[in-house]
């Protein structure tokens, strides 16, 4: 071995084992065979033969720890007769303990698996040793024996017959626990989490005012947080929830990456992989990205438009509180090992199949609540932005972040009812037994895909568009000039919002949907690149005309520009149908959407955190830690997702719990795929660890950060005019700020279409009705 890296050795070891599993037909008879414990000697015939009898002797009923037992495996019957060139072979697999050979008639494939050798293929019984484990668990043995007729033709496998024997040796220790009652597990977890949560809450309460600590103040303090309708408090709650679930989703991703770090790994079983994979997607989109957006929107939008609060503060509180309860429902199953295992897309008909875990019902129920939450959020923000802009602030004087929240909420608000209806159909199918997706009754699985992606595609823009808003704000402030092409930015966002409803079919190119629709969505998907490109060029032009100040949020913004553009470019491969058919089920897609979701949304929000944290808490973040965070995260992030493009192109399948490599060009992935996967997994850990720097930074600055001025970065939108942190209500309702645009010019006069719309609107000089 020239390259003695860890990953190289792993590759070789795995390669040996996997090559056997994947291609059992190639390495057949004389030399023994591995990896047949589930399939049997199927190259000698698909079924076990009744005329052969396999047996294991020498095993105790209950073993003692670390004791060595002599084991004899043998068979009788079948075509094997004395005088044949070969008599037979075997494969023995033990779930625990260590097997050992006594002579050259048998060989070990692993400590758990043994078979005959070339020398040992002319006998009918073999002697082995088994060293018992010291764990005390029950050990299962699976034996396959093959009785051969010794012919040469047809690779020597025709006419042979085989049998399977299975036996269990009881452990001395306490037997494996019976399956836990899910409700007990859930109750235990709820109690544990409640205790942990209480401790944290108490600590925060204490830190809040260490000198004036007094128990009598606790009840009002906690009630204030539980009942508050203040947009800033709710924003903070969203923010905490979003970051918490970002961590939870990240840990799930790490589990997935450990599993995928080497081929054929069994760190987590397929069963658990599916649950983690499902919940990783659902958590990251619905419980991390969306609350983070809602958190920033809650905090910043009223401040930016000069409103004292949102239009419906109590509904706002309801939208928040639905989320943690929904999160509990979504995670219900996973506590008892029966979490949702459908993928975050929950494709029908599997999602309504009785083979799925019970947790799928609650996964759907939790998302129904999230739909309700998003709908309420939508009502609130659309109304607030439409009606509560401060005097003098027209539509085209709104800051771009507010615009982005408006566009995102419009998309979300109009698309999410389709998802809600689909989820209700799934929930009803799984509970009262309706037949919406029951294929046997004529149900149409494609309907779910349609309803899901009618929502799902606008949804992915919902999570990226607010990041566009953040980037526009940050880049303008950092470049010390107004954003280049403000109006084109607004039209580009609105265009993305409009087109997003027509393009969703590109998620379903391989599903067999209407060909006409495929054609339409293919063309419109390509169209998305136009408004997105306009935005990218506007950002570049803003920097070009300004003089950039390099703060941490500026670095994240520059990072965003690079990674999001790369993600956008890889996205342009999918609208082309022929290309999509090849790439659809591969890691190329994983690479693409992580480039836009992590490199786009998450980077955007990191920029937002560094940008607005002083405003939200009144404390500055540590710039040195911030730069360190950016550098480590940016590098490890690219090492994490860039190789996935290559893996995808060579055909690494996504959504599955493992993969195999081989030297055979056709069968599976090339050998180097394992090296890349190992690199990806290591980068994943680095990326996760680097983000802990952000958490450390935030806590550190809360405890002893430098006091923030009202406008630390030199921004000029309304939020920088309030103190840091802002008062409550954010602006005095009787003395709202007034926007006077220094750049007011003729461009704000409406065109012909604008005049037509204006006639339908209530004009500015309409008489005031009543008082307020």
């Amino acid at each position, binding site marked *: 071995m020239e390259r003695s890296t860890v990953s190289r050795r792993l590759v070789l070891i795995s390669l040996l084992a996997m090559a056997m599993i994947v291609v059992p037909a190639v390495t057949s008879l004389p030399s023994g065979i591995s990896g047949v414990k589930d399939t049997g000697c199927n190259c000698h015939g698909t079924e076990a033969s009744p005329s052969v009898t396999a047996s294991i002797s020498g095993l105790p009923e209950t073993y003692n720890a670390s004791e060595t037992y002599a084991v004899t495996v043998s068979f009788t019957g079948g075509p094997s007769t004395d005088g044949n060139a070969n008599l037979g072979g075997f494969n023995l697999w033990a779930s625990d303990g260590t097997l050992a050979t006594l002579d050259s008639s048998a060989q070990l494939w692993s400590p758990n698996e043994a078979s005959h050798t070339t020398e040992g293929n002319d006998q009918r019984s073999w002697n082995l040793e088994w060293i018992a484990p010291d764990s005390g668990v029950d050990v299962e043995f699976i034996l396959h024996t093959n009785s051969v007729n010794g012919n040469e033709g047809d690779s020597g496998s025709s006419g042979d017959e085989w049998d399977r024997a299975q036996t269990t040796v009881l452990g001395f220790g306490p037997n494996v626990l019976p399956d836990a009652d899910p409700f007990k597990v859930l109750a235990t977890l709820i109690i544990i989490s409640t205790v942990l949560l209480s401790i944290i809450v108490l600590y925060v309460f204490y830190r809040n005012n260490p000198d004036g600590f007094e128990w009598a103040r606790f009840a009002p303090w906690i009630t204030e947080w539980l009942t508050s309708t203040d947009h800033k408090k709710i924003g903070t709650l969203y923010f905490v929830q979003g970051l918490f679930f970002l961590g939870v989703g990240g840990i799930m991703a790490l589990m997935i990456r450990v599993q995928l770090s080497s081929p054929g790994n069994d760190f987590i079983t397929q069963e658990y992989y599916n649950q983690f994979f499902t919940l990783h997607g659902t958590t990251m989109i619905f419980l991390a990205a969306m609350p983070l957006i809602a958190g920033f929107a809650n905090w910043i939008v009223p401040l930016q438009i000069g409103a004292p609060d949102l239009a419906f503060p109590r509904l706002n509180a309801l939208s928040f509180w639905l989320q943690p309860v929904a999160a509990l429902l979504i995670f219900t199953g996973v506590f008892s090992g029966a979490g949702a295992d459908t993928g975050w897309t929950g494709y029908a008909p599997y999602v309504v199949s009785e083979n799925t875990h019970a947790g799928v019902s609650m996964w759907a129920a939790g998302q129904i609540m999230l739909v309700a939450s998003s709908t309420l959020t939508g009502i609130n923000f659309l109304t607030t932005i439409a009606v509560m802009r401060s005097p003098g602030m027209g539509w085209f004087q709104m800051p771009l972040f507010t615009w982005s929240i408006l566009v995102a909420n419009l998309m979300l608000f*109009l*698309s999410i009812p*389709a998802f809600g209806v689909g989820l209700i159909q799934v929930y009803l199918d799984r509970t009262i037994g309706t037949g919406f997706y029951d294929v046997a009754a004529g149900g*149409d699985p*494609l*309907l779910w895909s*349609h*309803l899901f992606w*009618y929502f799902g595609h606008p949804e992915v823009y919902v999570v990226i568009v607010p990041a566009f808003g953040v980037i526009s704000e940050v880049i303008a402030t950092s470049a010390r000039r107004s954003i280049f092409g403000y109006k084109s930015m607004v039209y580009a966002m609105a265009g993305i919002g*409009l087109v997003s*409803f*027509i393009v*969703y*079919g590109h998620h379903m190119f391989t599903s*067999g*949907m*209407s*060909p*006409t*629709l495929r054609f339409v969505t293919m063309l419109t998907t390509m169209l998305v690149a136009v408004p997105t490109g306009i935005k990218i060029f506007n950002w570049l032009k803003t920097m070009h005309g300004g003089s950039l100040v390099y703060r941490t949020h500026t670095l994240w913004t520059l990072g965003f520009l690079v990674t999001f553009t790369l993600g956008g470019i890889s996205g342009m491969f999918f609208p082309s149908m022929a290309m999509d058919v090849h790439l659809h089920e591969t890691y190329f897609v994983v690479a693409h959407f992580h480039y836009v979701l992590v490199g786009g949304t998450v980077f955007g929000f990191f920029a937002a955190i560094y940008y607005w944290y002083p405003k939200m808490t009144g404390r500055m973040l540590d710039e040195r830690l911030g730069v360190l965070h950016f550098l480590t995260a940016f590098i490890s992030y690219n090492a994490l997702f860039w190789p996935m493009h290559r893996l995808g192109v060579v055909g690494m399948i996504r959504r599955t719990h493992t993969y195999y490599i081989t030297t055979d060009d056709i069968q599976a992935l090339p050998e180097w795929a394992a090296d890349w996967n190992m690199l990806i997994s290591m980068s994943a850990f680095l990326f996760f660890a680097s983000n802990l720097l952000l958490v450390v930074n935030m806590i550190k600055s809360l405890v002893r950060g430098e006091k923030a001025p009202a406008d630390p970065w030199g921004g000029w939108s309304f939020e920088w005019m309030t103190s840091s942190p802002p008062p409550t209500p954010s602006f005095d309702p009787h003395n709202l700020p007034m926007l006077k645009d220094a750049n007011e010019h003729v461009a704000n006069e409406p065109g012909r279409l604008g005049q037509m*719309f204006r*006639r*339908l*609107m*209530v004009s500015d000089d*309409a008489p005031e*009705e009543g008082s307020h």
Partner: protein
Amino acid sequence: MSKTIMGKDAYWMNFFGLMLLTLIEVAAVGTDLGPTAEGFDMTERQLTLWILTIIAIPKFMMIAAIFMHLWGENDSGILTLTALFPAFFIIIMVLFIGLTHPEAATGLPAWCRPGTYGL
């Protein structure tokens, strides 16, 4: 609040109109329209569907315009626009979800099925 239709109170007139249209709907379903339908060269069911759809449209507009105050008030214009805002998205949904059926390749027109690429 004191709008009138033909000199009568708008709410009452609207109410009577709606009742009348609904009666026609029920009657259209209960009556044997078979012979009439043949005159239009369609089945009875198709004719019923046409009648029902055509009657549903004015009913819809009457409720929206008068009961929901989308007609003749200061803010009617912009609120009508607000109510019509989802129209585009509804059309997309009905076209893409409601009216596409999953026949996939067999549903293609003949000229783009395998074997006829030469045109």
